[in-house]
């Protein structure tokens, strides 16, 4: 079972790596921001699997911290891209 957990963690990391190659190259900043999202989800998944396999204690808290901070990159981007004096970005709908 341990082997299975580790192997799945590896496969998830691999898919994340392949996704990162595609996403980090752009073309736009939006694509690049998705990289933070991709590694957030995939990284937490493989973190939990590795922890379950190796029996490291207290790893749930690390994953919890990562999950809390998963949206921070996008939030920081939106926050600094749209300064306060700019008109509120309309939805265009």
């Amino acid at each position, binding site marked *: 079972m341990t082997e299975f957990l580790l192997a*799945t963690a590896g496969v998830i990391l691999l898919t994340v790596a392949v996704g990162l190659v595609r996403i980090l190259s752009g073309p736009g900043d939006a694509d690049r921001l998705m990289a933070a*999202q991709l590694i957030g989800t995939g990284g937490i*998944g493989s973190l939990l699997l590795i922890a379950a396999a190796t029996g490291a204690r207290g790893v*749930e808290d690390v994953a919890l911290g990562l999950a809390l901070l998963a949206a921070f990159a996008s939030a920081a981007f939106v926050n600094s891209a749209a300064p306060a004096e700019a008109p509120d970005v309309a939805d265009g709908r």
Partner: protein
Amino acid sequence: MSLVVDLFSIVAIGAGVFFFLAGTVGLLRFPDALSRLHALTKADNLGLGLVVLGLLPRSDSLLAALKLVAIWALVQLASATAAQLVGRAVRCKGTAV
């Protein structure tokens, strides 16, 4: 009993990995940023949910199990919000593309 648990974990985590794979395939194949965003946030979150589901019976305490569920819920929230924010950045061309 432990065989049943193992089988459950293998099926759930295996399905989770499949969705991670599907998400990456979507990233590679979809032509524009918005549909890539769609593939990424939907498929990967389902994948993480299934991985968490598979790990649930293996956690050693109720608190640990609750934490696992909380992790998944928080990632859901973060992904949904980030997808909204990034999607909006794609739409208003001034800041992206």
